[in-house]
């Protein structure tokens, strides 16, 4: 048992350093989306919620598990969707042009559409 807790502590320490390192240079415009994105990632608690509910015995444990899963699902689904919605707004000029082209040229031959997309990426 002490071996497995030490393994987890190792993981904890390394993940902690990684968490610091990986976001060390974030422009302030991305602070809100980053907060929201990390918020979605701790929604991984849903995995824990499923495990405790799936092994529950008796109605009290089941009810508690049910509530836990609802909360955890809210966290993970809402977190990712709201972050995606924020990031939808961060488009470069060319991405926007591509999108506008796609909207207005719905009926045009596919070649034009794909070339516009190509420009968007470049």
């Amino acid at each position, binding site marked *: 048992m002490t071996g497995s*807790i030490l393994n987890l502590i190792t*993981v*904890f320490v390394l*993940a*902690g350093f990684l*968490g610091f390192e990986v*976001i*060390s240079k*974030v422009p*302030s*415009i*991305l602070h*809100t*989306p980053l*907060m*929201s*994105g990390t*918020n*979605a*990632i*701790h*929604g*991984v*608690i*849903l*995995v*824990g*919620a*499923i*495990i*405790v*509910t*799936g092994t*529950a015995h008796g109605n009290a*444990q*089941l009810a508690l*598990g*049910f509530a*836990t*899963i*609802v*909360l*955890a*699902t*809210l*966290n*993970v*689904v809402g977190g*990712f*969707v*709201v*972050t*995606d*919605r924020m*990031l939808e707004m*961060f*488009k*470069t*000029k060319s991405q*926007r042009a591509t999108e506008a082209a796609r909207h207005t040229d719905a009926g045009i031959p596919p070649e034009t559409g794909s070339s516009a997309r190509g420009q968007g990426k470049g």
Partner: protein
Amino acid sequence: MTLSTGIDIAYLVAAVTFILALRGLSSPRHARKGNIIGAIGMVIAVGVTFARPGLTHFGLIAIAMVIGAAIAVPAARLVKMTAIPQMVAMFNGVGGGAAALVSLSEFARYSHHHVAIYKIVEVLLGVIIGCISFAGSAISFAKLQEMMPTRPITYPAQQVVNGVIAAGILALAGLVLATNSTLTLVILLVVALVLGVAFTLPIGGADVPVLISLLNSFTGLAVAASGFVLHSTVLVVGGTLVGASGALLTQMMSKAMGRSITNIIFGAFGAVVTASGSMERSGGGSVKSGTPEDIGVLLAYSRKVAIVPGYGLAVAQAQHVARELADSLAKRGVDVFYAIHPVAGRMPGHMNVLLAEANVPYEQLKEMDIANMELPTTDVALVVGANDVVNPAARNTPGSPIYGMPILNVDAAANIVFLKRSMRPGFAGIDNELLYDPKTTMLFGDAKDMLTKLVAAVEAS
């Protein structure tokens, strides 16, 4: 390969996607992709969990997940962009609550046997941190939604009371360790909720975004603690990544506001309200107010105009009209840019999101340092629904609660126009001497309304 090895490998893949997601989210170009990668990893992690041996009650689990998703998706999709901060607070709070409940459920199972102390400590951490995050996020939500006063709520000996509650939690934790009693743990859970409320009450509205970031980090740690309880590496990795990056992000945010985290949590910022609502100040300064037509002409014949958007612009949903004004000025050859304070809106980066929603070209958005270099050569600084982020008290008045916060130096511009609903002070509740400056003209009214009139006035002149 056994089933459990396969599951562990899938969890490893998920953990890697979380790291990639964080890295993607730190750069504007890859942010959206990063988020999607994280979501894919999450689907993998949750999906393989169902394959774990020994799990039952799949129907119940599925129903709970459908209910959660059915609430979350519309809430996240339909919420107005201005209300995004409170949504983040809510989604964060429920995560903290879930982490606390996971630890509690697990504890309820082994409380009858003899359990190693470290396992109980893990449970205690999960429950305490998760509950503080849940209750604190609920208060943050209520403050941002203006369901309760945004001003700091203070009472005598507040920190002593909070200290007593915290001591109570430690005592109860000791009792749980000694007795393995589930009932005591439930009482502890309730007291931790009380502490979550008590410690967030004195935090003023302007600081709530930093608070949410801090609580986000807390939830991460609570999830990591649940990971220890359940021996789940993916929970430990996911939770710890958020705990660490959230702590760093909190620090970055408070730095952008020129304040320390301890000051935010214990400072009861903005409790002191000076003059408000009066047109005449004791100092004798008076306010000059103008008409949209005057200002329209002033703008139309300027060379360089800075638009300084604040939360008021967002509340009035005026970002689209602001862009119209900028476009019609640009058409006349006026050099227009948006001066964005890092904490404009209610969260760092919030204003960029709102303006991007209105299709404002990226190149017109200038961050504070660059904007401050441009402002001395700017003819008109048009402040729309912002106040605290341009308040010179942050530079000049050492006693002011916002002293030391970096601000946009709009007072360096040749003319200042404040578009405000009233003389009421900003979110921080501090009077702004700039409103009484001889260079300043006030334009009272709803931001959207006034901007529409300004567009007409510019087009007419």
